[in-house]
């Protein structure tokens, strides 16, 4: 039985494929966004991406929005395939093309698993939102909008828990799908296996990935610009290293999950 680290190393090519796919899909909206920035009225000589994003609802660069939408849909369509490829390569050592073939075999099952997890999350969210609206309405007599909003917000706090549980369930079910053949039994096994411990671990790994991604977005400006540099190559390199690191972090979590569920 391999350790999580060994499984992670074994999945290197699949993770690289994942990274390259995301890079390829991102190139189109990034180009359109950059083009829109140049073609649209310039806001300020020193404007940077995040500042400009504040303006996006105002500027509405439709080409960037549309290409972003296309890239997003393509990513959603490819996601099960890439995820299963990674998971398959963590389960057994084989050439990458064989893992892609395994992933393709399970593609429809993975789609079903994703849709059911989304349905589960949506049901939880709808119920919790209804509670929040109920609380807000019930407090109308106070004529205090802050109190009503905060109470509604507090009532909606379980939303986060439901979402995190759905995410963990999705990862566990995807892993079970590679370990078993049938998506129904994978989902049933996942429902049993998704313990509080797994949810917490999944949350921590996701938080680490989000923090890394955020740092990737913010730090180039803080570090490079603060020192008077405007080196696009350095920013590009830094950004890509961050994106790769986020993908690897995600892979490391999936590897630990495979290791745990294979026992």
């Amino acid at each position, binding site marked *: 039985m391999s350790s999580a680290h060994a499984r992670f190393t074994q999945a290197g090519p699949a993770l690289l494929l994942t990274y390259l796919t995301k890079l390829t899909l991102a190139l189109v909206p990034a180009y359109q966004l950059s083009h829109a920035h140049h073609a649209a009225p310039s*806001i*300020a000589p020193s404007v940077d991406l*995040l500042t400009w994003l*504040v303006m996006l609802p105002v500027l509405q660069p439709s080409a960037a929005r549309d290409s972003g939408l296309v890239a997003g849909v393509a990513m959603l369509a490819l996601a099960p395939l890439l995820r299963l490829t990674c998971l398959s390569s963590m389960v057994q050592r084989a050439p990458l093309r064989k893992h892609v073939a395994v992933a393709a075999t399970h593609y429809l099952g993975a789609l079903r698993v994703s849709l059911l997890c989304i349905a589960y999350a949506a049901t939880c969210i709808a119920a919790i939102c209804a509670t929040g609206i109920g609380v807000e309405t019930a407090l109308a007599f106070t004529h205090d*909008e802050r109190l009503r909003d905060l109470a509604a917000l507090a009532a909606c706090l379980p939303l986060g828990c439901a979402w995190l549980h759905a995410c963990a369930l999705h990862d566990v079910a995807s892993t079970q799908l590679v370990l078993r053949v049938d998506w129904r039994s994978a989902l049933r096994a996942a429902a049993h296996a998704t313990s509080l411990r797994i949810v917490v671990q999944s949350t921590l790994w996701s938080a680490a990935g989000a923090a890394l991604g955020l740092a990737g977005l913010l730090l180039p400006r803080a570090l490079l610009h603060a020192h008077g540099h405007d080196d*696009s190559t350095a920013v590009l390199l830094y*950004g890509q290293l*961050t994106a790769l690191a986020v993908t690897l972090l995600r892979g490391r979590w999936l590897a630990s999950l495979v290791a745990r569920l294979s026992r």
Partner: protein
Amino acid sequence: MSQTRLALVFWLLALTAHADDRALPRTDQRYEIDVTLDPASHTLVGSERISFVNHSQRPLRELYFHLYLNAFRDHHSVFMREGGTQLRDARLQQPGHIEITALHTQAGADLLPSAQAELVPGDRTQLRVPLPAPLSPRATLVVQVAFRAQLPALLARSGYAGEFHMVAQWFPKLARLDETSGWTSFPYHGLGEFYADFADYRVRITLPARFVVGSSGALTNTEVHGTLRTDELSASAVHDFAFAAYPYFERVEQRVQGVQVRVLAPRGYAAAAQRQLRVVRAGLLSLGARFGRYPYATLTVIIPPRDADAAAGMEYPTLFVSGGPWWALPAALPDPAQDFVTAHELAHQWFCGMIASNEVAYPMLDEGLAQWATLLQLRELYGSPPSLFAGRALPIDPFDVTRAVYLRRADPVPSSLLAVDAYRFETLARAVYLRPALVLDALATIHGEERVQRALSNYAHAQRFRHPTPVDLFASFDDVYGPGYSEQQLRPALSGTPTATLEPTRAAAAHAPTERSFFAEALLLAQTLLQGLGP
């Protein structure tokens, strides 16, 4: 411009400001109104005594009243036909109206039978009242009016939402009497605002005692009779009077340069009220230094509750309705959601309140200049370099944002010098608000900020408590920039002449350099977003 240089400009402007900045002019009109608000039926029943002098050069044979609540009577009014509800994205749910039930002179002549109520077919927002005998120049006429009004469910400026009542354009008011051309009366236009003579008001408002009132002018007396309360208010040298009533207002007050500033906000809005008070404090000092001190003793800011948002963003003399959510960012951070409307409506205390141009004929004179003054206030509030987002980490200039909004659509923008009925809702903002502000900013960039400031300061001081036209504005610019400058540069730019030097264009904007790292950052952002969807 550095803050030190700005301070120096203010100081110089303050030194050269007229010594009688705080003096209010004497007016020859007086309204004494006694009104009862029934918040359960949302009705007003009142009487008014109007005393006015014929300050025109010819005998008056008629009076014109504005009955602007009739704009909300049905879908046939000019206001509704011109799409007045689009501005606040609302629909006519519960109509409102006003009816004069008695109208006679002090001598007892009944004026109502001969009055004409429908001067524009389908619209009853004006009333023409023939006089039994011509009123000679400089002669005084006193009329007694009784009226009954139904407030509409809030859809534009006036009306009610739950227990919140914004009582604006609520009483029969005389149209403006021009010295040379006679009455200037028009219906309540869909995209237009108001125009009237300066007058003194004494208003007695009776309503349930639990209601808190925020109004134009100052409270002079309060009497409680059982469950009812009567507030007596007085306002001098103002061209309108409005009030808001709501039982759940909380009050934040501060004295700024002798002005009692009062923010009335719903429960839970303490942070927003403090934030807006800070904007008003800074604005009173800044705008006062530029355009002459705010001369009134009080200034009231109303933050409406969430469901009364259609009342937000409107100015009245010594009173304005701002907007924004109950939460506010800490003072150190820019918060346009709280600051922008407040700064804009405060600027209207000058460009509308005191410099009372005809807002239907020349909307640019109040909205365009107020927009420019708003952006300057935001620039000052947010420090140097200015930033609308997250402090200095992400610098962005309010004028740049305005330029981006102005230029985001390629279709031509009509002249900024047209009357409101020439605009469509979609073009009004760009023509009337944005372009004038950008033209003045371009002027400041090309010829220096000090000269623009001087031209507008001269205009503001010369037209204080007057009713200027664009000719007066152009004359102030010609005084500073040289004879003929306005005709050669300013008017073409405001008219949207493509070759005008000061006209903001895409071609000019495209020359601004952009960061080379933009693509790299855009790529990373796209990847990060895809990460959320990815495996």
